Protein backbone atom coordinates (compact mmCIF):
# COMPACT_ATOMS: atom_id res chain seq x y z
CA UNK A 1 0.00 0.00 0.00
CA UNK A 2 0.99 3.61 -0.42
CA UNK A 3 0.00 4.51 3.14
CA UNK A 4 3.59 4.83 4.32
CA UNK A 5 3.94 8.02 2.31
CA UNK A 6 2.89 11.32 3.80
CA UNK A 7 -0.28 12.60 2.20
CA UNK A 8 -0.42 16.14 0.75
CA UNK A 9 -3.92 16.56 2.10
CA UNK A 10 -5.59 14.40 4.65
CA UNK A 11 -9.04 14.70 6.13
CA UNK A 12 -9.90 12.95 9.36
CA UNK A 13 -13.54 12.26 10.11
CA UNK A 14 -14.51 15.52 8.47
CA UNK A 15 -18.01 16.67 9.33
CA UNK A 16 -19.88 19.76 8.28
CA UNK A 17 -23.34 20.93 9.26
CA UNK A 18 -25.25 23.89 7.93
CA UNK A 19 -27.55 24.58 10.83
CA UNK A 20 -29.37 21.31 11.38
CA UNK A 21 -28.48 19.95 7.96
CA UNK A 22 -25.68 17.37 8.13
CA UNK A 23 -23.89 17.80 4.83
CA UNK A 24 -20.64 15.91 5.48
CA UNK A 25 -21.02 12.95 7.80
CA UNK A 26 -17.42 12.00 8.42
CA UNK A 27 -14.99 11.81 5.52
CA UNK A 28 -11.47 10.44 6.04
CA UNK A 29 -9.40 10.63 2.87
CA UNK A 30 -5.78 10.94 1.90
CA UNK A 31 -4.62 12.68 -1.23
CA UNK A 32 -1.00 12.17 -2.24
CA UNK A 33 1.37 14.37 -4.16
CA UNK A 34 0.94 14.00 -7.89
CA UNK A 35 -2.37 12.23 -7.56
CA UNK A 36 -5.37 13.19 -9.66
CA UNK A 37 -8.56 12.54 -7.73
CA UNK A 38 -11.94 13.01 -9.34
CA UNK A 39 -15.05 13.38 -7.22
CA UNK A 40 -18.37 12.34 -8.67
CA UNK A 41 -21.81 11.94 -7.19
CA UNK A 42 -25.37 13.24 -7.22
CA UNK A 43 -26.06 16.92 -6.80
CA UNK A 44 -26.49 17.95 -3.17
CA UNK A 45 -24.35 15.06 -1.96
CA UNK A 46 -21.70 17.33 -0.46
CA UNK A 47 -19.00 17.33 -3.17
CA UNK A 48 -18.54 21.10 -3.19
CA UNK A 49 -18.66 21.32 0.57
CA UNK A 50 -15.95 18.68 0.86
CA UNK A 51 -13.75 20.52 -1.65
CA UNK A 52 -14.34 23.86 0.06
CA UNK A 53 -13.37 22.36 3.41
CA UNK A 54 -9.95 21.48 1.99
CA UNK A 55 -8.92 25.15 1.94
CA UNK A 56 -11.27 26.11 4.75
CA UNK A 57 -13.57 28.24 2.63
CA UNK A 58 -16.03 26.22 4.66
CA UNK A 59 -15.02 25.74 8.27
CA UNK A 60 -15.59 22.10 9.27
CA UNK A 61 -17.95 21.46 12.15
CA UNK A 62 -15.61 18.74 13.41
CA UNK A 63 -12.75 16.62 12.20
CA UNK A 64 -9.42 17.66 10.76
CA UNK A 65 -7.96 18.90 7.53
CA UNK A 66 -4.22 18.32 7.42
CA UNK A 67 -2.27 20.01 4.65
CA UNK A 68 1.41 19.23 4.19
CA UNK A 69 1.54 18.01 7.76
CA UNK A 70 -0.11 21.07 9.32
CA UNK A 71 -3.60 20.89 10.69
CA UNK A 72 -5.58 23.71 9.15
CA UNK A 73 -7.34 25.66 11.81
CA UNK A 74 -8.87 29.07 11.39
CA UNK A 75 -7.26 30.40 14.52
CA UNK A 76 -3.93 28.67 14.91
CA UNK A 77 -2.36 28.22 11.50
CA UNK A 78 -1.55 30.98 9.05
CA UNK A 79 -4.39 30.08 6.79
CA UNK A 80 -3.47 32.65 4.14
CA UNK A 81 -0.05 31.11 3.76
CA UNK A 82 -1.56 27.66 3.26
CA UNK A 83 -4.17 28.92 0.86
CA UNK A 84 -1.41 30.33 -1.31
CA UNK A 85 -0.41 26.74 -1.94
CA UNK A 86 -3.94 25.50 -2.65
CA UNK A 87 -5.29 26.74 -5.95
CA UNK A 88 -9.03 26.73 -6.48
CA UNK A 89 -11.14 26.96 -9.61
CA UNK A 90 -14.84 27.66 -9.29
CA UNK A 91 -17.84 26.71 -11.37
CA UNK A 92 -18.71 30.38 -11.84
CA UNK A 93 -15.10 31.36 -12.72
CA UNK A 94 -15.13 34.28 -10.24
CA UNK A 95 -12.64 36.27 -12.30
CA UNK A 96 -12.23 39.84 -11.08
CA UNK A 97 -14.31 41.99 -13.46
CA UNK A 98 -12.67 45.28 -12.49
CA UNK A 99 -9.16 44.09 -13.32
CA UNK A 100 -7.55 43.51 -16.69
CA UNK A 101 -6.69 39.91 -17.55
CA UNK A 102 -3.04 40.39 -16.65
CA UNK A 103 -3.91 42.09 -13.35
CA UNK A 104 -6.33 39.29 -12.49
CA UNK A 105 -3.30 37.03 -12.55
CA UNK A 106 -0.71 39.25 -10.91
CA UNK A 107 -2.74 40.73 -8.06
CA UNK A 108 -2.43 37.78 -5.69
CA UNK A 109 1.29 37.04 -6.25
CA UNK A 110 2.10 40.74 -5.87
CA UNK A 111 -0.13 41.48 -2.88
CA UNK A 112 0.96 38.36 -1.02
CA UNK A 113 4.54 39.40 -1.76
CA UNK A 114 5.31 36.16 -3.51
CA UNK A 115 6.70 38.05 -6.49
CA UNK A 116 7.58 41.55 -7.56
CA UNK A 117 5.30 43.10 -10.15
CA UNK A 118 7.82 42.45 -12.93
CA UNK A 119 8.30 38.81 -11.98
CA UNK A 120 4.56 38.29 -11.65
CA UNK A 121 3.90 39.84 -15.05
CA UNK A 122 6.53 37.72 -16.74
CA UNK A 123 5.05 34.63 -15.15
CA UNK A 124 1.51 35.70 -16.10
CA UNK A 125 2.48 36.18 -19.73
CA UNK A 126 4.06 32.76 -19.83
CA UNK A 127 0.92 31.19 -18.35
CA UNK A 128 -1.40 33.09 -20.66
CA UNK A 129 0.57 31.80 -23.63
CA UNK A 130 0.17 28.25 -22.39
CA UNK A 131 -3.63 28.52 -22.43
CA UNK A 132 -3.86 30.52 -25.64
CA UNK A 133 -4.87 33.84 -24.12
CA UNK A 134 -1.81 35.93 -24.94
CA UNK A 135 -3.80 38.33 -27.10
CA UNK A 136 -6.25 39.04 -24.26
CA UNK A 137 -3.65 40.25 -21.79
CA UNK A 138 -4.85 43.86 -21.72
CA UNK A 139 -8.59 43.10 -22.01
CA UNK A 140 -11.13 43.21 -19.23
CA UNK A 141 -12.82 39.87 -18.45
CA UNK A 142 -16.15 41.08 -19.87
CA UNK A 143 -14.60 40.71 -23.32
CA UNK A 144 -13.88 37.02 -22.75
CA UNK A 145 -16.06 34.01 -23.47
CA UNK A 146 -16.96 31.64 -20.64
CA UNK A 147 -14.25 29.21 -21.67
CA UNK A 148 -11.67 31.97 -21.78
CA UNK A 149 -12.75 33.21 -18.36
CA UNK A 150 -12.32 29.75 -16.90
CA UNK A 151 -8.88 29.38 -18.47
CA UNK A 152 -8.02 32.76 -16.97
CA UNK A 153 -9.25 31.54 -13.57
CA UNK A 154 -7.03 28.49 -13.89
CA UNK A 155 -3.89 30.46 -14.68
CA UNK A 156 -4.75 32.97 -11.96
CA UNK A 157 -4.57 30.09 -9.49
CA UNK A 158 -1.45 28.63 -11.12
CA UNK A 159 0.36 31.96 -10.83
CA UNK A 160 0.65 31.29 -7.10
CA UNK A 161 2.51 28.07 -7.93
CA UNK A 162 0.25 25.95 -5.75
CA UNK A 163 1.04 22.43 -4.62
CA UNK A 164 -2.49 21.28 -5.36
CA UNK A 165 -5.36 22.47 -7.52
CA UNK A 166 -9.00 22.10 -6.53
CA UNK A 167 -11.63 22.25 -9.27
CA UNK A 168 -15.34 22.53 -8.49
CA UNK A 169 -17.27 21.55 -11.61
CA UNK A 170 -15.03 23.72 -13.78
CA UNK A 171 -17.05 23.15 -16.95
CA UNK A 172 -20.62 23.03 -15.62
CA UNK A 173 -21.33 26.70 -16.36
CA UNK A 174 -19.88 26.56 -19.87
CA UNK A 175 -21.58 26.35 -23.24
CA UNK A 176 -20.93 22.86 -24.68
CA UNK A 177 -18.51 24.10 -27.32
CA UNK A 178 -16.29 25.66 -24.64
CA UNK A 179 -15.97 22.54 -22.49
CA UNK A 180 -13.29 20.79 -24.50
CA UNK A 181 -10.77 23.64 -24.39
CA UNK A 182 -11.00 23.93 -20.62
CA UNK A 183 -10.79 20.18 -20.05
CA UNK A 184 -7.69 20.05 -22.22
CA UNK A 185 -6.01 22.65 -20.06
CA UNK A 186 -6.86 20.69 -16.91
CA UNK A 187 -5.72 17.43 -18.46
CA UNK A 188 -2.37 18.93 -19.46
CA UNK A 189 -1.99 20.19 -15.94
CA UNK A 190 -2.84 16.79 -14.46
CA UNK A 191 -0.38 15.09 -16.77
CA UNK A 192 2.35 17.54 -15.81
CA UNK A 193 2.29 16.07 -12.31
CA UNK A 194 0.13 18.66 -10.54
CA UNK A 195 -1.91 17.22 -7.72
CA UNK A 196 -5.55 17.78 -8.65
CA UNK A 197 -8.87 17.26 -6.92
CA UNK A 198 -11.63 17.64 -9.47
CA UNK A 199 -15.37 17.60 -8.85
CA UNK A 200 -16.89 16.84 -12.21
CA UNK A 201 -19.87 15.50 -14.09
CA UNK A 202 -17.74 14.81 -17.17
CA UNK A 203 -17.45 11.05 -16.77
CA UNK A 204 -15.34 10.50 -19.89
CA UNK A 205 -12.87 13.12 -18.74
CA UNK A 206 -12.84 11.68 -15.23
CA UNK A 207 -11.99 8.26 -16.56
CA UNK A 208 -9.22 9.65 -18.69
CA UNK A 209 -7.39 11.74 -16.08
CA UNK A 210 -8.18 10.25 -12.69
CA UNK A 211 -5.85 8.05 -10.70
CA UNK A 212 -8.63 7.59 -8.21
CA UNK A 213 -12.33 8.36 -8.17
CA UNK A 214 -14.40 9.16 -5.09
CA UNK A 215 -18.13 8.69 -5.24
CA UNK A 216 -19.63 11.07 -2.67
CA UNK A 217 -23.27 10.59 -1.84
CA UNK A 218 -25.27 11.83 1.12
CA UNK A 219 -22.23 13.24 2.91
CA UNK A 220 -20.00 10.18 2.79
CA UNK A 221 -17.52 8.65 0.38
CA UNK A 222 -19.78 5.78 -0.58
CA UNK A 223 -17.18 4.19 -2.82
CA UNK A 224 -13.70 4.88 -4.11
CA UNK A 225 -11.28 3.22 -6.44
CA UNK A 226 -9.48 3.45 -9.75
CA UNK A 227 -11.62 4.63 -12.66
CA UNK A 228 -11.75 1.08 -14.00
CA UNK A 229 -12.89 -0.33 -10.68
CA UNK A 230 -15.49 2.31 -10.13
CA UNK A 231 -16.91 2.64 -13.63
CA UNK A 232 -16.71 -0.98 -14.74
CA UNK A 233 -17.28 -2.83 -11.49
CA UNK A 234 -19.08 -0.57 -9.03
CA UNK A 235 -19.78 -2.47 -5.83
CA UNK A 236 -22.08 -0.11 -3.99
CA UNK A 237 -25.71 -0.17 -5.25
CA UNK A 238 -25.82 3.62 -4.92
CA UNK A 239 -22.80 3.95 -7.22
CA UNK A 240 -24.40 1.55 -9.66
CA UNK A 241 -27.62 3.53 -9.66
CA UNK A 242 -25.82 6.88 -10.07
CA UNK A 243 -23.69 5.58 -12.93
CA UNK A 244 -26.66 4.06 -14.69
CA UNK A 245 -28.23 7.51 -14.70
CA UNK A 246 -25.24 9.46 -15.97
CA UNK A 247 -23.53 7.08 -18.38
Amino acid sequence: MIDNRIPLIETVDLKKNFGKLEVLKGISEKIYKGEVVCIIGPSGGGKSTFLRCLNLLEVPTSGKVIFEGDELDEKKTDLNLHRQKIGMVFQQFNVFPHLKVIDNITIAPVKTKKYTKEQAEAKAKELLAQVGLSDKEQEYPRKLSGGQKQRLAIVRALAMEPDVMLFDEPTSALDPEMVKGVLEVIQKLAESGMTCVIVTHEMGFCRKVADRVLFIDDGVVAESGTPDELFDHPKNPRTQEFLSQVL
Partner: protein
Amino acid sequence: MGKGIFEVLFEYWPIFLRGLAGTLEYSFIAVTLGSILGAVVAVIHLSKNKFVSFIASVYVNVLRGTPLLVQMYISYYFLPMAFPVLNKIDKIYFVMFALILNSSAYVAEIIRSGINAVDSGQTEAARSLGMTKGQTMLRIVLPQAIKNILPALGNEYIAMVKETSLAGTFMLYELMYTRTILANKYLVWQPQMIIAGIYLIVTLVLSFGVKKMEKRLSVSD
Protein backbone atom coordinates in the same frame (compact mmCIF):
# COMPACT_ATOMS: atom_id res chain seq x y z
CA MET B 1 -52.48 89.07 -5.36
CA GLY B 2 -49.91 91.85 -5.54
CA LYS B 3 -46.67 91.24 -7.40
CA GLY B 4 -46.11 88.50 -9.95
CA ILE B 5 -43.61 85.67 -9.57
CA PHE B 6 -41.07 87.07 -11.97
CA GLU B 7 -41.31 90.49 -10.43
CA VAL B 8 -40.46 89.01 -7.03
CA LEU B 9 -37.70 86.87 -8.48
CA PHE B 10 -36.21 89.90 -10.25
CA GLU B 11 -36.33 92.05 -7.16
CA TYR B 12 -35.14 89.54 -4.56
CA TRP B 13 -32.93 87.12 -6.53
CA PRO B 14 -29.89 87.64 -4.28
CA ILE B 15 -31.94 86.33 -1.37
CA PHE B 16 -32.93 83.20 -3.29
CA LEU B 17 -29.38 82.74 -4.52
CA ARG B 18 -28.02 82.90 -1.02
CA GLY B 19 -30.72 80.48 0.08
CA LEU B 20 -29.81 78.08 -2.70
CA ALA B 21 -26.12 78.34 -1.80
CA GLY B 22 -27.03 77.52 1.80
CA THR B 23 -29.10 74.53 0.75
CA LEU B 24 -26.34 73.12 -1.44
CA GLU B 25 -23.70 73.77 1.17
CA TYR B 26 -25.58 72.26 4.11
CA SER B 27 -26.53 69.17 2.15
CA PHE B 28 -22.97 68.79 0.91
CA ILE B 29 -21.56 69.01 4.41
CA ALA B 30 -24.21 66.66 5.76
CA VAL B 31 -23.61 64.00 3.11
CA THR B 32 -19.81 64.32 3.15
CA LEU B 33 -19.42 64.07 6.90
CA GLY B 34 -22.35 61.66 6.96
CA SER B 35 -20.46 59.46 4.49
CA ILE B 36 -17.38 59.30 6.65
CA LEU B 37 -19.44 58.45 9.72
CA GLY B 38 -21.64 56.15 7.64
CA ALA B 39 -18.61 54.22 6.36
CA VAL B 40 -17.57 53.57 9.94
CA VAL B 41 -21.08 52.46 10.87
CA ALA B 42 -21.22 50.19 7.80
CA VAL B 43 -17.94 48.51 8.76
CA ILE B 44 -19.27 47.95 12.27
CA HIS B 45 -22.54 46.64 10.86
CA LEU B 46 -20.66 44.16 8.66
CA SER B 47 -18.74 42.83 11.64
CA LYS B 48 -19.00 39.11 12.26
CA ASN B 49 -19.44 39.82 15.95
CA LYS B 50 -23.21 39.68 16.38
CA PHE B 51 -23.34 42.13 19.28
CA VAL B 52 -21.16 44.75 17.60
CA SER B 53 -23.17 44.41 14.41
CA PHE B 54 -26.41 44.72 16.38
CA ILE B 55 -25.35 48.08 17.84
CA ALA B 56 -24.80 49.45 14.36
CA SER B 57 -28.16 48.16 13.20
CA VAL B 58 -29.88 49.86 16.15
CA TYR B 59 -28.15 53.11 15.22
CA VAL B 60 -29.28 52.80 11.62
CA ASN B 61 -32.84 51.78 12.49
CA VAL B 62 -33.38 54.55 15.02
CA LEU B 63 -32.13 57.26 12.70
CA ARG B 64 -34.01 55.96 9.69
CA GLY B 65 -37.11 55.11 11.66
CA THR B 66 -37.71 58.55 13.17
CA PRO B 67 -38.43 61.78 11.28
CA LEU B 68 -35.51 64.10 10.64
CA LEU B 69 -37.52 66.98 12.08
CA VAL B 70 -37.86 65.14 15.38
CA GLN B 71 -34.12 64.45 15.38
CA MET B 72 -33.47 68.14 14.75
CA TYR B 73 -35.70 69.18 17.66
CA ILE B 74 -33.98 66.75 19.98
CA SER B 75 -30.55 67.91 18.89
CA TYR B 76 -31.45 71.61 18.93
CA TYR B 77 -33.33 71.81 22.21
CA PHE B 78 -32.61 68.71 24.20
CA LEU B 79 -28.84 68.32 23.78
CA PRO B 80 -27.93 71.81 25.10
CA MET B 81 -30.43 71.30 27.92
CA ALA B 82 -28.96 67.95 28.92
CA PHE B 83 -25.37 69.12 28.55
CA PRO B 84 -25.19 72.82 29.50
CA VAL B 85 -21.55 73.11 28.36
CA LEU B 86 -22.87 72.81 24.84
CA ASN B 87 -24.65 76.15 25.21
CA LYS B 88 -21.45 77.90 24.19
CA ILE B 89 -21.67 76.36 20.74
CA ASP B 90 -23.51 78.10 17.91
CA LYS B 91 -26.98 76.60 17.55
CA ILE B 92 -26.46 76.06 13.85
CA TYR B 93 -24.16 73.15 14.68
CA PHE B 94 -26.93 71.31 16.46
CA VAL B 95 -29.03 71.37 13.32
CA MET B 96 -26.04 70.25 11.26
CA PHE B 97 -25.37 67.53 13.80
CA ALA B 98 -28.83 66.07 13.24
CA LEU B 99 -28.42 66.31 9.46
CA ILE B 100 -25.05 64.56 9.56
CA LEU B 101 -26.23 61.79 11.85
CA ASN B 102 -29.36 61.26 9.80
CA SER B 103 -27.35 61.12 6.59
CA SER B 104 -24.80 58.76 8.10
CA ALA B 105 -27.52 56.18 8.77
CA TYR B 106 -28.67 56.23 5.16
CA VAL B 107 -25.10 56.19 3.86
CA ALA B 108 -24.25 53.27 6.14
CA GLU B 109 -27.03 51.27 4.51
CA ILE B 110 -25.90 52.36 1.05
CA ILE B 111 -22.35 51.20 1.73
CA ARG B 112 -23.40 48.00 3.43
CA SER B 113 -25.77 46.95 0.67
CA GLY B 114 -23.23 48.07 -1.95
CA ILE B 115 -20.66 45.74 -0.42
CA ASN B 116 -23.15 42.91 0.04
CA ALA B 117 -24.19 43.21 -3.59
CA VAL B 118 -20.71 42.14 -4.70
CA ASP B 119 -20.88 38.41 -5.46
CA SER B 120 -19.50 36.36 -2.59
CA GLY B 121 -17.59 34.34 -5.20
CA GLN B 122 -15.28 37.33 -5.57
CA THR B 123 -14.30 37.18 -1.92
CA GLU B 124 -13.93 33.41 -2.06
CA ALA B 125 -11.68 33.61 -5.11
CA ALA B 126 -9.47 36.23 -3.49
CA ARG B 127 -9.26 34.36 -0.19
CA SER B 128 -8.54 31.09 -1.96
CA LEU B 129 -5.52 32.79 -3.54
CA GLY B 130 -4.22 33.56 -0.06
CA MET B 131 -5.07 37.25 0.00
CA THR B 132 -5.92 38.57 3.45
CA LYS B 133 -9.34 39.87 4.49
CA GLY B 134 -8.09 43.43 4.24
CA GLN B 135 -6.52 42.98 0.82
CA THR B 136 -9.67 41.29 -0.41
CA MET B 137 -11.86 44.13 0.82
CA LEU B 138 -9.59 46.87 -0.48
CA ARG B 139 -8.52 45.40 -3.83
CA ILE B 140 -11.41 43.20 -4.85
CA VAL B 141 -14.68 44.04 -3.09
CA LEU B 142 -14.60 47.82 -2.64
CA PRO B 143 -13.61 48.68 -6.22
CA GLN B 144 -16.67 46.74 -7.37
CA ALA B 145 -18.94 47.99 -4.60
CA ILE B 146 -18.08 51.59 -5.42
CA LYS B 147 -20.08 51.24 -8.63
CA ASN B 148 -23.20 50.61 -6.57
CA ILE B 149 -22.26 53.07 -3.86
CA LEU B 150 -21.41 56.25 -5.79
CA PRO B 151 -24.73 56.64 -7.63
CA ALA B 152 -26.62 55.89 -4.43
CA LEU B 153 -24.58 58.55 -2.64
CA GLY B 154 -25.57 60.96 -5.40
CA ASN B 155 -29.20 60.11 -4.74
CA GLU B 156 -28.64 60.61 -1.03
CA TYR B 157 -27.32 64.09 -1.80
CA ILE B 158 -30.45 64.82 -3.83
CA ALA B 159 -32.61 63.62 -0.97
CA MET B 160 -30.60 65.75 1.43
CA VAL B 161 -31.11 68.85 -0.73
CA LYS B 162 -34.82 68.44 -0.05
CA GLU B 163 -34.37 67.41 3.59
CA THR B 164 -32.36 70.51 4.48
CA SER B 165 -35.53 72.49 3.91
CA LEU B 166 -36.35 71.52 7.48
CA ALA B 167 -33.30 73.43 8.69
CA GLY B 168 -35.07 76.68 7.80
CA THR B 169 -37.31 76.01 10.77
CA PHE B 170 -34.23 76.60 12.92
CA MET B 171 -33.22 79.82 11.18
CA LEU B 172 -30.50 78.31 9.05
CA TYR B 173 -30.17 80.39 5.90
CA GLU B 174 -31.18 77.96 3.20
CA LEU B 175 -33.80 78.04 0.46
CA MET B 176 -36.81 77.46 2.66
CA TYR B 177 -35.66 80.20 5.01
CA THR B 178 -36.08 82.79 2.23
CA ARG B 179 -39.79 82.20 2.68
CA THR B 180 -39.56 83.49 6.25
CA ILE B 181 -37.54 86.52 5.14
CA LEU B 182 -39.95 87.47 2.40
CA ALA B 183 -43.02 86.82 4.52
CA ASN B 184 -41.87 89.83 6.52
CA LYS B 185 -42.35 91.81 3.33
CA TYR B 186 -45.88 90.42 2.97
CA LEU B 187 -44.84 88.14 0.12
CA VAL B 188 -46.14 84.62 0.60
CA TRP B 189 -47.29 82.69 -2.42
CA GLN B 190 -44.69 84.03 -4.87
CA PRO B 191 -41.62 82.96 -2.87
CA GLN B 192 -43.30 79.62 -2.26
CA MET B 193 -43.64 78.96 -5.98
CA ILE B 194 -40.14 80.22 -6.72
CA ILE B 195 -38.67 78.00 -4.00
CA ALA B 196 -40.54 74.99 -5.36
CA GLY B 197 -39.25 75.79 -8.86
CA ILE B 198 -35.66 76.09 -7.69
CA TYR B 199 -35.83 72.77 -5.77
CA LEU B 200 -37.27 71.06 -8.81
CA ILE B 201 -34.62 72.41 -11.18
CA VAL B 202 -31.77 71.55 -8.81
CA THR B 203 -32.96 67.99 -8.17
CA LEU B 204 -33.60 67.38 -11.87
CA VAL B 205 -30.12 68.57 -12.79
CA LEU B 206 -28.54 66.48 -10.04
CA SER B 207 -30.57 63.41 -11.03
CA PHE B 208 -29.35 63.82 -14.58
CA GLY B 209 -25.79 63.93 -13.26
CA VAL B 210 -26.31 60.78 -11.22
CA LYS B 211 -27.74 58.95 -14.26
CA LYS B 212 -24.68 59.88 -16.30
CA MET B 213 -22.38 58.72 -13.54
CA GLU B 214 -24.27 55.44 -13.27
CA LYS B 215 -23.83 54.85 -16.99
CA ARG B 216 -20.12 55.54 -16.89
CA LEU B 217 -19.55 53.32 -13.90
CA SER B 218 -21.45 50.39 -15.38
CA VAL B 219 -19.33 50.32 -18.52
CA SER B 220 -16.94 47.67 -17.23
CA ASP B 221 -19.64 45.12 -16.32
